[in-house]
C-alpha cells in the first residue's frame, strides 16, 4: 500500500507557537482585567444604588414623621432630630391598654383641651428621635429602636427646622461618600445629596 502525500499537513514551528501563546496571554489578560473591572464597577454601582435607596428611606421616614408631628427640634449639629407626635394608636403599656388589653392597636378618639383648645389624642405624646450611631441611622420611638439605614459609605443626614407663625418646616439632606471616587471627596459627597423639605401639618406647639 502506498500512502498518499498530504502536502498541507505541516506542524507549527516553535516561533509560531511562542507567538500564538503570547497573543493568547495578552487576550486572556485583557479578558480577565476587563472582567475584574466590570465586577468592580458593578460592585460600585450596586453600592451606590443600595446606599441611595437608604438615603431615600431616611428622607421618607423623616418626611412622614415631620408631617404628622406637633413639634420638631433639631440639635445644634443638625444630626439629631426630635419629634413630638400624637399617639393616634393605642399601644401596649398605654393607660387604656392596661385596663383593657384588647384595645392595643385601636385608634383613639380625639379630645379637646378645655384650657388650651387644642385637639389631642390621649394624654401623652410619642417622642421620636432620629440619630446617628456609627454607620447606622436610628429611629427611636418611645425607647424602641429601629435601624432605618446602615451603610459603610458614611451616610450623613442633616436636618434643620425653621419655625413660622403657625407651623414650621424641616429641611433634610442626606449625603454619602461613594466607594469609587476621583480624589475630591467633598465633591463626591456633594454629588450624592438627596434633599427634601416638609412642613408640619399640625399647628406648631413648641
Amino acid at each position: 500500500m502506498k500512502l498518499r502525500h498530504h502536502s498541507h499537513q505541516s506542524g507549527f514551528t516553535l516561533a509560531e507557537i511562542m507567538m500564538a501563546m503570547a497573543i493568547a496571554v495578552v487576550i486572556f489578560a485583557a479578558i480577565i482585567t476587563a472582567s475584574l473591572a466590570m465586577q468592580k464597577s458593578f460592585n460600585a454601582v450596586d453600592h451606590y444604588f443600595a446606599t441611595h435607596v437608604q438615603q431615600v428611606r431616611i428622607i421618607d421616614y423623616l418626611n412622614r414623621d415631620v408631617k404628622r408631628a406637633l413639634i420638631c427640634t433639631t440639635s445644634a449639629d443638625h444630626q439629631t432630630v426630635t419629634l413630638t407626635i400624637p399617639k393616634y394608636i393605642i399601644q401596649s403599656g398605654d393607660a387604656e391598654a392596661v385596663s383593657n388589653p384588647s384595645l392595643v392597636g385601636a385608634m383613639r378618639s380625639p379630645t379637646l383641651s378645655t384650657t388650651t383648645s387644642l385637639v389631642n389624642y390621649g394624654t401623652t405624646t410619642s417622642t421620636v428621635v432620629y440619630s446617628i450611631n456609627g454607620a447606622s441611622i436610628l429611629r427611636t420611638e418611645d425607647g424602641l429602636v429601629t435601624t432605618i439605614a446602615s451603610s459603610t459609605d458614611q451616610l450623613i443626614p442633616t436636618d434643620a427646622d425653621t419655625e413660622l407663625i403657625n407651623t414650621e418646616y424641616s429641611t433634610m439632606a442626606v449625603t454619602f461618600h461613594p466607594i469609587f471616587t476621583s480624589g475630591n471627596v467633598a465633591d463626591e459627597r456633594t454629588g450624592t445629596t438627596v434633599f427634601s423639605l416638609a412642613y408640619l401639618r399640625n399647628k406648631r406647639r413648641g
Partner: protein
Amino acid sequence: MKVASTPNERGNVLLCAICTIFIISLIAANVLLNCTARYNQASNQVRSWNEALYAAESGADMAFAEIRKTLPGASPSPSPWTGWAPSGTTYVSPVTGTASLPWTFGSDNLQARTVVETCYFDSSGVFHLGANPTGAWPWYRIRSKGTSPLQGLKRTGMDDRLSNGNRFVANGSTRGDGDTLLRKIDFNYDHFIATYGPNGDGTGKALQAVNAPQIARRIELIVGAVTPFGAAVEVTTSFDGPGSAGLIDSFNSNNGAYYFAANNPSDPHYADSHSGSVAVNSPTFFMHQGPIWGDVSTNGGNVLPSNLIHGVIDNSVPLDIKPFDMPSLPMPQPSPVAFNSNTTITPASPGSVSAPTTYQVSSWSKSVTFNQSGSAQTYVAVHVTSDFTGQVTVNTGVHVQVYFDGNMSVKARDLVNNTNLAANMQFYGIKPTDPNTTQTIAIASPGNFVGTFYAPSAAISFTGNPDITGSIVGKSYSGNGNTSLHYDRALDNIGEPVDYRVASYVEDIR
C-alpha cells in the same frame, strides 16, 4: 488507508469567543438585573408611596372645601355636599362618578376615598359623633384614604443586601425589613383590611384581594371653626404700636384674672402670656418702644428680630379678613328703637347664644345698662343703624353683642364691662355700603376697656393710655400712645366662625 483532509480547524477559537461573550453577558445581566431591581424600588415604590399620601390629602382638601361652603354667609353653587353620599351627619365621597367608585385623578390613576363625619366636643372635651345638641358650630372628622397603583415589577426591595447583608430587625411586631417596614405594599391582598378591618377599628377583617399591586395611606383630620378673635390684633392694612409705656401680651380668663406674667417662666400662667400676637396683611408694620409678647406676621413686611418682640416673626403670611355683613338675628323687640336717653334693659327672657334678645336702634348716644334676666345667663344683641357715641354697661351674667353701621367715638370709660370677660362685650362694625369708605373707631382716655372689636372695614385707634383686655380685628390699628392690650386666650372659641381650620392631622401608619 487514506486520511481525509481537514483544511479549516478553527472550532476552538469560536468556542473561546462564545465563552468570553457568555461570561461578559452574565456579568452584564447581573448588573442589569440588580440595577432594575434597585430602580424598581427606588423609583416606582417610592413614588407610589408618596403619591398615595398626595391622593389622601387631595381627598381631605376636597372635603375641606365642602365644609367651608357651610360657613355663615356663604352661598356656594353647587351647594355643600353636592354629589356626596350623605348618611345622617356623615358624608362619603365621591362627588363624581358612580357611588361605588372612588375619585380617580392624576396620570397615575390615584384614588381617594373620603368620609366626613360631623362631630363635637362636650364641655369636658370628650369627642362625640353627630350634631352638637347645644346648637354650637360643628366640628368635622375627615378620614381620607389615598391609593396609588404600583407601577413596574411585582417585587419587594433588596433590603437583605443592604448593610453588608445584615437584615434589619425593627421590633417584635415587624412585618418586614427595611423598606417594607416603611412602605407597606399590597401585592395580592389589602393588608390593612385583613389586619385591622376596613375602618381600622378591628371589625370586618377580611382577606380582600387587590386588582393590582398598590400602596394605600390613610390620614385623619379634625376640622374646627375659626372664630374671629384668634390673636391680639389682626388688621389688613397697617399696624402702629405699642408705645413706650404700653405692651401687648396675653392671659387666659379661664385660668383667672389678668396679671403680667410674660417675663417669669416659673409663673403658672406664663404659658398663657405669650399669645399677644399681631398679624398684618400688608408690609406696613410700625413698631414703637413697647414690647409684644407674641408672634408677629406681615404679608411682605420687613420686621426684624428685636428684643421687643418675644415670639416668632414671619413676613410672608397672608391674612384673609372679609368685610363683615350684618348677620341674621331674631326679630328685634318693638322698643326701644333709639337710645337717646339713659336706658336700663332687662330682657324678659334670657335668650341664647344662637337666639339672643335683639334690639334695633337708630341711634345710641346715651348710657344703656344691660341687666340679667332673672338668674339665667342672658344674651342680648343690638343693631345700631348709625354711629355709636354713647355709653354701655354690661352687668354680671349678661352677654352683649353690638352691631353698628356707622362710626364709633367714645372714651374707654364709656364701655363698662362688669363681667370682666371680654367675650361678654363684643362690638361688630358692619361694612359700609360704599366699599371705598373706611369706618372709624376711636377710643380715647381716660379709662380701661374689657371687650372685643371685629370691624374689618374700620380704622381703629386708641389714644392716651387705655388698658384694653380682649382682641382687635380691623382694617388698621393705631395704639402708639401708652395703650396696653391684653389678649384673652379664652376668646379663641368665641363668636361666629369666619372660616374653618385643620385642628389636627394624624396619619394611620399601620
